[in-house]
Protein backbone atom coordinates (compact mmCIF):
# COMPACT_ATOMS: atom_id res chain seq x y z
CA UNK A 1 0.00 0.00 0.00
CA UNK A 2 1.63 3.23 -1.07
CA UNK A 3 1.56 5.97 1.53
CA UNK A 4 0.35 9.26 0.09
CA UNK A 5 0.60 12.52 1.97
CA UNK A 6 -2.22 14.96 1.32
CA UNK A 7 -1.42 18.48 2.46
CA UNK A 8 -4.16 21.00 3.07
CA UNK A 9 -3.68 24.59 1.99
CA UNK A 10 -2.90 25.57 5.59
CA UNK A 11 -0.17 22.93 5.75
CA UNK A 12 -2.04 20.25 7.69
CA UNK A 13 -0.78 16.87 6.56
CA UNK A 14 -2.91 13.77 6.08
CA UNK A 15 -0.88 10.63 5.47
CA UNK A 16 -3.05 7.97 3.84
CA UNK A 17 -2.27 4.33 3.13
CA UNK A 18 -3.98 4.10 -0.23
CA UNK A 19 -5.08 1.10 -2.24
CA UNK A 20 -3.66 0.52 -5.69
CA UNK A 21 -6.18 0.93 -8.46
CA UNK A 22 -8.24 3.66 -6.84
CA UNK A 23 -7.80 7.26 -7.84
CA UNK A 24 -6.13 9.84 -5.61
CA UNK A 25 -9.55 11.48 -5.26
CA UNK A 26 -11.08 8.23 -4.00
CA UNK A 27 -8.25 7.72 -1.53
CA UNK A 28 -8.79 11.22 -0.15
CA UNK A 29 -12.57 10.73 0.05
CA UNK A 30 -12.29 7.33 1.71
CA UNK A 31 -9.89 8.69 4.33
CA UNK A 32 -11.91 11.80 4.99
CA UNK A 33 -9.24 14.22 3.80
CA UNK A 34 -10.82 17.66 3.75
CA UNK A 35 -10.41 19.97 0.78
CA UNK A 36 -11.42 17.71 -2.08
CA UNK A 37 -15.08 17.91 -3.01
CA UNK A 38 -15.32 15.71 -6.10
CA UNK A 39 -18.89 16.63 -6.90
CA UNK A 40 -19.03 14.71 -10.16
CA UNK A 41 -17.73 11.51 -8.60
CA UNK A 42 -14.59 11.36 -10.68
CA UNK A 43 -15.78 11.70 -14.24
CA UNK A 44 -13.81 14.85 -15.00
CA UNK A 45 -16.66 17.35 -15.13
CA UNK A 46 -16.53 19.39 -11.93
CA UNK A 47 -12.88 20.27 -11.30
CA UNK A 48 -13.56 20.22 -7.55
CA UNK A 49 -10.85 17.61 -6.99
CA UNK A 50 -8.01 19.96 -7.99
CA UNK A 51 -4.58 19.24 -6.45
CA UNK A 52 -0.93 20.08 -7.03
CA UNK A 53 1.62 17.39 -7.82
CA UNK A 54 5.25 18.44 -7.67
CA UNK A 55 7.14 18.24 -10.96
CA UNK A 56 9.49 15.58 -9.61
CA UNK A 57 6.57 13.15 -9.42
CA UNK A 58 5.34 13.65 -12.97
CA UNK A 59 7.13 10.56 -14.23
CA UNK A 60 5.03 8.51 -11.81
CA UNK A 61 1.75 10.39 -11.86
CA UNK A 62 1.70 10.83 -15.62
CA UNK A 63 0.53 13.88 -17.50
CA UNK A 64 -2.97 15.28 -17.83
CA UNK A 65 -4.88 14.34 -20.96
CA UNK A 66 -6.64 16.86 -23.17
CA UNK A 67 -9.98 16.86 -21.34
CA UNK A 68 -8.26 17.28 -18.00
CA UNK A 69 -6.05 20.10 -19.25
CA UNK A 70 -9.04 21.91 -20.68
CA UNK A 71 -11.01 21.50 -17.47
CA UNK A 72 -8.09 22.86 -15.48
CA UNK A 73 -7.70 25.94 -17.65
CA UNK A 74 -10.26 27.91 -15.70
CA UNK A 75 -9.93 26.61 -12.15
CA UNK A 76 -9.02 28.88 -9.32
CA UNK A 77 -5.39 28.71 -8.26
CA UNK A 78 -4.21 26.96 -11.39
CA UNK A 79 -0.48 26.47 -11.92
CA UNK A 80 2.00 24.19 -13.64
CA UNK A 81 1.52 21.51 -10.98
CA UNK A 82 -2.27 21.46 -11.25
CA UNK A 83 -3.97 18.08 -11.70
CA UNK A 84 -7.40 16.60 -11.15
CA UNK A 85 -6.99 13.96 -8.46
CA UNK A 86 -9.78 11.81 -9.93
CA UNK A 87 -7.69 11.31 -13.05
CA UNK A 88 -4.64 9.86 -11.29
CA UNK A 89 -4.68 6.16 -10.50
CA UNK A 90 -2.68 5.06 -7.51
CA UNK A 91 0.22 2.71 -8.05
CA UNK A 92 2.91 1.35 -5.75
CA UNK A 93 5.48 3.75 -7.25
CA UNK A 94 3.55 6.54 -5.55
CA UNK A 95 4.78 5.66 -2.09
CA UNK A 96 5.75 8.98 -0.50
CA UNK A 97 3.86 11.12 -3.01
CA UNK A 98 2.96 14.56 -1.72
CA UNK A 99 -0.37 15.94 -2.91
CA UNK A 100 -1.00 19.57 -2.07
CA UNK A 101 -4.42 21.17 -2.14
CA UNK A 102 -5.50 24.58 -3.37
CA UNK A 103 -7.13 27.22 -1.22
CA UNK A 104 -10.53 26.72 -2.85
CA UNK A 105 -12.07 24.19 -5.22
CA UNK A 106 -13.84 24.80 -8.48
CA UNK A 107 -14.04 27.49 -11.10
Amino acid at each position, binding site marked *: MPRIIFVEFDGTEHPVDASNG*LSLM*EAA*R*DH*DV*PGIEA*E*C*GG*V*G*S*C*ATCHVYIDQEWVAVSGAAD*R*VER*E*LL*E*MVEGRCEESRLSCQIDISHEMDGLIVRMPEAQG*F
Partner: protein
Amino acid sequence: MQFDVVIVGAGHGGAQVAVMLRTQKFEGSIAIIGEESELPYERPPLSKEYFAGEKEFERIQLRPARYWDEREVTMLLGKRVVAVDPAAHTVATDGGETIGYGKLVWATGGHPRVLPIPGGDLPGVQGVRTRADADADAMKAASETAGQIVVVGGGYIGLEAAAVLNKAGKKVVLLEAQNRVLARVAGEELSRFYEKEHRDHGVELHLGVCVDAIEGDTRVTGVRLSDGEVIPADLVIVGIGIIPAVAPLIAAGADCANGVRVDRLCKTSLPDVYAIGDCAAHVNDFAEGAEVRLESVQNANDQANVVAKGIVGDEAPYHAIPWFWSNQYDLKLQTAGLSTGHDQAVLRGDPATRSFSVVYLKAGKVIALDCVNATRDYVQGRMVVSAGLEAGPEQLADIETPLKELLSV
Protein backbone atom coordinates in the same frame (compact mmCIF):
# COMPACT_ATOMS: atom_id res chain seq x y z
CA MET B 1 -36.48 9.63 19.01
CA GLN B 2 -35.69 13.28 18.56
CA PHE B 3 -32.99 14.98 16.48
CA ASP B 4 -32.06 18.59 15.88
CA VAL B 5 -31.99 17.93 12.16
CA VAL B 6 -33.85 15.12 10.44
CA ILE B 7 -33.05 14.56 6.77
CA VAL B 8 -35.49 12.45 4.76
CA GLY B 9 -33.79 10.72 1.84
CA ALA B 10 -30.27 9.28 1.91
CA GLY B 11 -29.32 10.31 -1.61
CA HIS B 12 -27.06 12.98 -3.06
CA GLY B 13 -28.80 15.94 -1.47
CA GLY B 14 -29.52 14.37 1.91
CA ALA B 15 -25.95 13.16 2.35
CA GLN B 16 -24.53 16.54 1.41
CA VAL B 17 -26.68 18.36 3.98
CA ALA B 18 -25.17 16.21 6.74
CA VAL B 19 -21.64 16.52 5.34
CA MET B 20 -21.91 20.30 5.07
CA LEU B 21 -23.49 20.67 8.52
CA ARG B 22 -20.54 18.85 10.08
CA THR B 23 -18.07 20.79 7.91
CA GLN B 24 -19.71 23.95 9.28
CA LYS B 25 -19.08 22.59 12.81
CA PHE B 26 -22.76 22.06 13.52
CA GLU B 27 -22.85 20.20 16.83
CA GLY B 28 -26.51 19.25 17.05
CA SER B 29 -27.84 15.75 16.45
CA ILE B 30 -28.47 14.67 12.84
CA ALA B 31 -30.42 11.72 11.49
CA ILE B 32 -30.93 10.62 7.91
CA ILE B 33 -33.98 8.48 7.21
CA GLY B 34 -33.67 6.59 3.94
CA GLU B 35 -36.07 4.26 2.24
CA GLU B 36 -33.28 2.37 0.48
CA SER B 37 -31.22 0.04 2.64
CA GLU B 38 -27.96 1.52 1.30
CA LEU B 39 -25.71 4.19 2.68
CA PRO B 40 -25.65 7.20 0.34
CA TYR B 41 -24.16 6.47 -3.07
CA GLU B 42 -23.82 8.18 -6.42
CA ARG B 43 -26.72 7.67 -8.78
CA PRO B 44 -25.18 8.73 -12.14
CA PRO B 45 -23.05 5.56 -12.46
CA LEU B 46 -26.22 3.43 -12.31
CA SER B 47 -26.69 4.01 -16.02
CA LYS B 48 -22.96 4.29 -16.74
CA GLU B 49 -19.88 2.71 -15.09
CA TYR B 50 -21.78 0.70 -12.47
CA PHE B 51 -24.32 -0.57 -14.98
CA ALA B 52 -21.48 -1.52 -17.30
CA GLY B 53 -19.77 -3.42 -14.48
CA GLU B 54 -16.72 -1.16 -14.62
CA LYS B 55 -16.98 0.08 -11.03
CA GLU B 56 -17.98 -1.92 -7.97
CA PHE B 57 -20.50 -0.56 -5.51
CA GLU B 58 -17.95 0.44 -2.85
CA ARG B 59 -16.42 2.86 -5.31
CA ILE B 60 -19.64 4.74 -5.86
CA GLN B 61 -20.46 5.27 -2.18
CA LEU B 62 -20.45 8.97 -1.40
CA ARG B 63 -18.56 8.36 1.84
CA PRO B 64 -17.09 5.25 3.46
CA ALA B 65 -19.38 3.73 6.11
CA ARG B 66 -17.23 4.81 9.05
CA TYR B 67 -17.54 8.48 8.02
CA TRP B 68 -21.15 8.59 9.19
CA ASP B 69 -20.28 7.01 12.56
CA GLU B 70 -17.34 9.29 13.14
CA ARG B 71 -19.42 12.36 12.33
CA GLU B 72 -22.29 11.11 14.46
CA VAL B 73 -24.82 11.08 11.71
CA THR B 74 -27.48 8.53 12.67
CA MET B 75 -28.50 6.46 9.66
CA LEU B 76 -32.04 5.15 9.81
CA LEU B 77 -32.12 3.07 6.64
CA GLY B 78 -34.77 0.86 5.11
CA LYS B 79 -37.43 3.18 6.56
CA ARG B 80 -39.86 5.31 4.61
CA VAL B 81 -41.38 8.46 5.98
CA VAL B 82 -45.12 8.27 5.42
CA ALA B 83 -46.38 11.31 7.30
CA VAL B 84 -45.25 14.69 8.55
CA ASP B 85 -46.90 16.51 11.45
CA PRO B 86 -45.73 20.09 11.08
CA ALA B 87 -47.38 21.28 14.28
CA ALA B 88 -45.83 18.59 16.46
CA HIS B 89 -42.55 18.69 14.46
CA THR B 90 -42.55 14.93 13.96
CA VAL B 91 -42.41 12.46 11.10
CA ALA B 92 -43.84 8.95 11.08
CA THR B 93 -42.23 6.00 9.31
CA ASP B 94 -43.79 3.00 7.60
CA GLY B 95 -42.64 0.93 10.58
CA GLY B 96 -44.79 3.04 12.90
CA GLU B 97 -41.99 5.02 14.52
CA THR B 98 -42.42 8.68 15.38
CA ILE B 99 -39.31 10.82 15.07
CA GLY B 100 -39.14 14.42 16.26
CA TYR B 101 -37.20 17.14 14.46
CA GLY B 102 -36.01 20.64 15.09
CA LYS B 103 -35.44 21.21 11.36
CA LEU B 104 -36.64 18.84 8.67
CA VAL B 105 -34.91 18.54 5.30
CA TRP B 106 -36.91 16.80 2.61
CA ALA B 107 -34.49 15.29 0.08
CA THR B 108 -36.46 12.41 -1.36
CA GLY B 109 -35.86 12.76 -5.08
CA GLY B 110 -38.52 10.85 -6.95
CA HIS B 111 -39.66 7.45 -8.07
CA PRO B 112 -39.51 6.38 -11.70
CA ARG B 113 -42.68 7.04 -13.63
CA VAL B 114 -44.34 3.74 -14.49
CA LEU B 115 -45.80 3.14 -17.95
CA PRO B 116 -49.52 3.68 -17.44
CA ILE B 117 -50.45 0.86 -19.81
CA PRO B 118 -51.44 -2.81 -19.57
CA GLY B 119 -48.43 -4.90 -18.57
CA GLY B 120 -46.53 -1.82 -17.38
CA ASP B 121 -45.70 -3.62 -14.13
CA LEU B 122 -44.83 -7.08 -15.53
CA PRO B 123 -41.62 -8.71 -14.32
CA GLY B 124 -38.88 -7.72 -16.73
CA VAL B 125 -40.07 -4.12 -16.95
CA GLN B 126 -37.50 -2.10 -15.09
CA GLY B 127 -36.83 1.51 -14.15
CA VAL B 128 -33.32 2.76 -13.32
CA ARG B 129 -33.19 4.86 -10.19
CA THR B 130 -31.62 2.79 -7.43
CA ARG B 131 -28.91 0.23 -6.88
CA ALA B 132 -31.67 -2.34 -6.45
CA ASP B 133 -32.96 -1.45 -9.91
CA ALA B 134 -29.53 -1.81 -11.48
CA ASP B 135 -28.96 -5.08 -9.61
CA ALA B 136 -32.42 -6.50 -10.24
CA ASP B 137 -32.38 -10.13 -11.32
CA ALA B 138 -34.11 -9.15 -14.52
CA MET B 139 -31.36 -6.72 -15.40
CA LYS B 140 -28.57 -9.10 -14.48
CA ALA B 141 -30.05 -12.07 -16.25
CA ALA B 142 -31.05 -10.05 -19.25
CA SER B 143 -27.68 -8.39 -19.61
CA GLU B 144 -26.27 -11.88 -19.92
CA THR B 145 -28.87 -13.78 -21.89
CA ALA B 146 -31.34 -11.35 -23.40
CA GLY B 147 -31.76 -11.52 -27.12
CA GLN B 148 -33.31 -8.12 -27.41
CA ILE B 149 -33.78 -5.26 -24.97
CA VAL B 150 -36.25 -2.45 -25.48
CA VAL B 151 -35.56 0.91 -23.88
CA VAL B 152 -38.60 3.15 -23.54
CA GLY B 153 -37.68 6.82 -23.33
CA GLY B 154 -34.95 8.76 -25.13
CA GLY B 155 -33.85 10.95 -22.24
CA TYR B 156 -30.34 10.84 -20.82
CA ILE B 157 -30.91 7.74 -18.70
CA GLY B 158 -32.48 5.77 -21.55
CA LEU B 159 -29.73 6.77 -23.97
CA GLU B 160 -26.98 5.95 -21.49
CA ALA B 161 -28.49 2.55 -20.72
CA ALA B 162 -28.83 1.87 -24.46
CA ALA B 163 -25.17 2.78 -25.00
CA VAL B 164 -23.97 0.48 -22.21
CA LEU B 165 -26.08 -2.46 -23.42
CA ASN B 166 -25.05 -1.87 -27.01
CA LYS B 167 -21.40 -1.88 -26.00
CA ALA B 168 -22.01 -5.15 -24.18
CA GLY B 169 -23.10 -6.62 -27.49
CA LYS B 170 -26.87 -6.57 -26.91
CA LYS B 171 -29.49 -5.86 -29.52
CA VAL B 172 -31.19 -2.68 -28.32
CA VAL B 173 -34.36 -1.03 -29.58
CA LEU B 174 -35.04 2.45 -28.28
CA LEU B 175 -38.54 3.92 -28.40
CA GLU B 176 -39.26 7.61 -28.00
CA ALA B 177 -42.72 9.17 -28.06
CA GLN B 178 -41.53 12.61 -29.20
CA ASN B 179 -40.13 13.19 -32.67
CA ARG B 180 -36.61 13.48 -31.27
CA VAL B 181 -34.57 12.21 -28.35
CA LEU B 182 -33.68 14.58 -25.48
CA ALA B 183 -36.62 16.75 -26.54
CA ARG B 184 -37.23 17.96 -22.99
CA VAL B 185 -33.67 19.00 -22.21
CA ALA B 186 -31.80 19.96 -25.37
CA GLY B 187 -32.08 21.60 -28.75
CA GLU B 188 -32.64 19.78 -31.99
CA GLU B 189 -28.98 19.78 -33.17
CA LEU B 190 -28.00 17.80 -30.11
CA SER B 191 -30.91 15.39 -30.50
CA ARG B 192 -30.07 14.66 -34.12
CA PHE B 193 -26.43 14.14 -33.28
CA TYR B 194 -27.20 11.56 -30.59
CA GLU B 195 -29.77 9.84 -32.76
CA LYS B 196 -27.17 9.35 -35.46
CA GLU B 197 -24.56 8.12 -32.98
CA HIS B 198 -26.90 5.50 -31.57
CA ARG B 199 -27.98 4.36 -35.01
CA ASP B 200 -24.38 4.18 -36.20
CA HIS B 201 -23.60 1.99 -33.21
CA GLY B 202 -26.42 -0.34 -34.17
CA VAL B 203 -29.21 0.75 -31.83
CA GLU B 204 -32.60 0.56 -33.53
CA LEU B 205 -34.28 3.88 -32.87
CA HIS B 206 -37.97 4.59 -33.31
CA LEU B 207 -39.15 8.16 -32.88
CA GLY B 208 -42.69 9.42 -32.49
CA VAL B 209 -43.98 6.01 -31.43
CA CYS B 210 -46.55 5.31 -28.79
CA VAL B 211 -46.34 2.21 -26.61
CA ASP B 212 -49.78 0.69 -26.08
CA ALA B 213 -49.02 -2.35 -23.96
CA ILE B 214 -46.34 -4.60 -22.62
CA GLU B 215 -47.00 -8.16 -23.71
CA GLY B 216 -46.35 -11.30 -21.70
CA ASP B 217 -48.05 -13.62 -19.22
CA THR B 218 -45.64 -14.12 -16.37
CA ARG B 219 -42.94 -11.84 -17.66
CA VAL B 220 -42.37 -9.48 -20.55
CA THR B 221 -42.08 -10.91 -24.04
CA GLY B 222 -42.62 -7.83 -26.13
CA VAL B 223 -43.77 -4.25 -26.51
CA ARG B 224 -46.88 -3.44 -28.53
CA LEU B 225 -46.95 -0.12 -30.37
CA SER B 226 -50.10 1.80 -31.19
CA ASP B 227 -49.89 0.74 -34.83
CA GLY B 228 -50.16 -2.87 -33.70
CA GLU B 229 -46.53 -3.83 -34.26
CA VAL B 230 -45.07 -5.97 -31.49
CA ILE B 231 -41.36 -5.62 -30.81
CA PRO B 232 -40.00 -8.71 -29.05
CA ALA B 233 -38.17 -8.01 -25.80
CA ASP B 234 -36.69 -10.01 -22.93
CA LEU B 235 -36.20 -6.87 -20.88
CA VAL B 236 -37.83 -3.47 -21.05
CA ILE B 237 -35.99 -0.57 -19.46
CA VAL B 238 -38.21 2.40 -18.79
CA GLY B 239 -36.70 5.87 -18.51
CA ILE B 240 -39.59 8.27 -18.79
CA GLY B 241 -38.90 10.53 -15.88
CA ILE B 242 -39.69 10.60 -12.20
CA ILE B 243 -42.54 11.61 -9.98
CA PRO B 244 -41.26 13.73 -7.10
CA ALA B 245 -41.70 11.86 -3.81
CA VAL B 246 -43.65 14.52 -1.94
CA ALA B 247 -46.97 12.86 -1.01
CA PRO B 248 -46.43 13.17 2.77
CA LEU B 249 -45.68 16.88 2.37
CA ILE B 250 -48.80 17.44 0.26
CA ALA B 251 -50.82 15.68 2.95
CA ALA B 252 -49.21 17.91 5.57
CA GLY B 253 -50.40 20.98 3.69
CA ALA B 254 -47.17 22.15 2.07
CA ASP B 255 -47.46 24.29 -1.04
CA CYS B 256 -46.76 21.81 -3.83
CA ALA B 257 -46.81 21.93 -7.63
CA ASN B 258 -44.57 19.67 -9.69
CA GLY B 259 -42.68 18.89 -6.50
CA VAL B 260 -42.67 20.89 -3.31
CA ARG B 261 -42.29 24.62 -3.70
CA VAL B 262 -39.37 26.25 -1.95
CA ASP B 263 -38.12 29.79 -1.63
CA ARG B 264 -34.61 30.97 -2.38
CA LEU B 265 -33.38 29.58 0.91
CA CYS B 266 -34.96 26.22 0.06
CA LYS B 267 -37.65 26.63 2.70
CA THR B 268 -41.07 25.09 2.08
CA SER B 269 -44.28 26.76 3.20
CA LEU B 270 -44.20 24.64 6.39
CA PRO B 271 -42.25 26.01 9.37
CA ASP B 272 -38.75 24.54 9.80
CA VAL B 273 -39.16 22.31 6.75
CA TYR B 274 -36.68 22.62 3.88
CA ALA B 275 -36.69 20.75 0.58
CA ILE B 276 -33.86 20.21 -1.90
CA GLY B 277 -32.81 18.32 -5.00
CA ASP B 278 -34.96 16.52 -7.52
CA CYS B 279 -38.18 17.03 -5.52
CA ALA B 280 -37.85 20.80 -5.01
CA ALA B 281 -39.57 23.30 -7.33
CA HIS B 282 -37.65 26.53 -7.06
CA VAL B 283 -37.22 29.82 -8.83
CA ASN B 284 -33.90 29.55 -10.61
CA ASP B 285 -31.80 32.58 -11.50
CA PHE B 286 -30.54 30.74 -14.58
CA ALA B 287 -34.07 30.06 -15.85
CA GLU B 288 -34.90 33.76 -16.12
CA GLY B 289 -36.66 33.52 -12.79
CA ALA B 290 -38.95 30.69 -13.86
CA GLU B 291 -39.96 28.01 -11.36
CA VAL B 292 -38.18 24.79 -12.25
CA ARG B 293 -37.38 21.40 -10.83
CA LEU B 294 -33.89 20.25 -11.75
CA GLU B 295 -32.64 16.70 -11.71
CA SER B 296 -28.90 16.98 -11.35
CA VAL B 297 -26.14 16.32 -8.87
CA GLN B 298 -25.17 19.99 -9.07
CA ASN B 299 -28.61 21.13 -7.97
CA ALA B 300 -28.90 18.58 -5.16
CA ASN B 301 -25.44 19.46 -3.81
CA ASP B 302 -25.71 23.20 -4.08
CA GLN B 303 -29.18 23.32 -2.54
CA ALA B 304 -27.93 21.06 0.25
CA ASN B 305 -25.20 23.57 0.94
CA VAL B 306 -27.72 26.42 1.03
CA VAL B 307 -29.77 24.54 3.64
CA ALA B 308 -26.84 23.45 5.80
CA LYS B 309 -25.45 26.96 5.87
CA GLY B 310 -28.90 28.36 6.57
CA ILE B 311 -29.27 26.03 9.55
CA VAL B 312 -26.00 27.23 11.05
CA GLY B 313 -27.09 30.84 10.56
CA ASP B 314 -25.20 31.68 7.40
CA GLU B 315 -28.18 32.28 5.11
CA ALA B 316 -27.51 32.99 1.45
CA PRO B 317 -29.98 32.47 -1.38
CA TYR B 318 -29.50 29.71 -3.93
CA HIS B 319 -27.59 31.08 -6.88
CA ALA B 320 -25.46 28.46 -8.61
CA ILE B 321 -24.98 27.89 -12.28
CA PRO B 322 -26.58 24.61 -13.36
CA TRP B 323 -24.26 22.03 -14.90
CA PHE B 324 -24.68 18.45 -15.94
CA TRP B 325 -22.91 15.67 -17.77
CA SER B 326 -23.79 12.54 -19.69
CA ASN B 327 -21.45 9.84 -20.99
CA GLN B 328 -22.44 7.70 -23.95
CA TYR B 329 -19.96 5.60 -25.93
CA ASP B 330 -16.82 7.75 -26.18
CA LEU B 331 -18.87 10.95 -26.09
CA LYS B 332 -18.60 13.23 -23.12
CA LEU B 333 -21.43 15.69 -22.97
CA GLN B 334 -21.07 18.57 -20.55
CA THR B 335 -23.72 21.22 -20.18
CA ALA B 336 -23.72 24.61 -18.52
CA GLY B 337 -26.82 26.69 -17.83
CA LEU B 338 -30.41 25.78 -18.70
CA SER B 339 -31.45 25.74 -22.34
CA THR B 340 -35.21 25.61 -21.70
CA GLY B 341 -36.89 28.66 -23.18
CA HIS B 342 -34.11 29.48 -25.66
CA ASP B 343 -35.14 31.29 -28.83
CA GLN B 344 -31.97 30.62 -30.80
CA ALA B 345 -29.44 27.79 -30.98
CA VAL B 346 -26.04 28.31 -32.56
CA LEU B 347 -23.87 25.43 -33.67
CA ARG B 348 -20.24 25.90 -32.75
CA GLY B 349 -18.04 23.39 -34.57
CA ASP B 350 -18.96 20.49 -36.81
CA PRO B 351 -20.88 17.55 -35.31
CA ALA B 352 -19.26 15.32 -37.93
CA THR B 353 -15.95 15.78 -36.07
CA ARG B 354 -17.68 14.52 -32.89
CA SER B 355 -16.45 17.57 -31.05
CA PHE B 356 -18.75 20.58 -31.04
CA SER B 357 -21.04 22.72 -28.92
CA VAL B 358 -24.53 24.11 -29.16
CA VAL B 359 -24.88 27.59 -27.72
CA TYR B 360 -28.39 28.60 -26.62
CA LEU B 361 -29.53 32.19 -26.60
CA LYS B 362 -32.56 33.97 -25.31
CA ALA B 363 -33.17 37.54 -26.43
CA GLY B 364 -29.55 37.75 -27.56
CA LYS B 365 -28.11 36.52 -24.25
CA VAL B 366 -26.22 33.24 -23.88
CA ILE B 367 -28.21 31.10 -21.45
CA ALA B 368 -26.73 27.64 -21.92
CA LEU B 369 -24.29 25.38 -23.76
CA ASP B 370 -24.29 21.70 -24.60
CA CYS B 371 -20.70 20.68 -25.28
CA VAL B 372 -19.83 17.33 -26.81
CA ASN B 373 -16.18 16.35 -26.41
CA ALA B 374 -15.55 20.07 -26.09
CA THR B 375 -14.49 20.63 -22.51
CA ARG B 376 -12.86 23.96 -23.25
CA ASP B 377 -16.18 25.35 -24.46
CA TYR B 378 -17.85 23.91 -21.38
CA VAL B 379 -15.55 25.57 -18.84
CA GLN B 380 -15.56 28.87 -20.67
CA GLY B 381 -19.27 28.47 -21.28
CA ARG B 382 -19.85 28.41 -17.54
CA MET B 383 -18.22 31.82 -17.30
CA VAL B 384 -20.10 33.14 -20.29
CA VAL B 385 -23.48 32.02 -18.94
CA SER B 386 -22.71 33.33 -15.45
CA ALA B 387 -21.77 36.66 -16.94
CA GLY B 388 -24.93 36.81 -19.07
CA LEU B 389 -22.90 37.44 -22.21
CA GLU B 390 -24.68 38.96 -25.17
CA ALA B 391 -23.11 37.89 -28.44
CA GLY B 392 -24.02 37.47 -32.06
CA PRO B 393 -24.44 34.05 -33.68
CA GLU B 394 -21.45 34.58 -36.04
CA GLN B 395 -19.14 35.27 -33.13
CA LEU B 396 -20.39 32.28 -31.18
CA ALA B 397 -20.09 29.98 -34.18
CA ASP B 398 -16.46 30.94 -34.80
CA ILE B 399 -14.43 28.13 -33.25
CA GLU B 400 -11.22 30.10 -33.73
CA THR B 401 -12.35 32.55 -31.06
CA PRO B 402 -12.34 31.13 -27.52
CA LEU B 403 -15.63 31.95 -25.82
CA LYS B 404 -13.95 33.77 -22.96
CA GLU B 405 -12.54 36.29 -25.40
CA LEU B 406 -16.06 37.39 -26.21
CA LEU B 407 -16.40 38.46 -22.60
CA SER B 408 -13.78 41.14 -22.86
CA VAL B 409 -15.17 42.66 -26.06
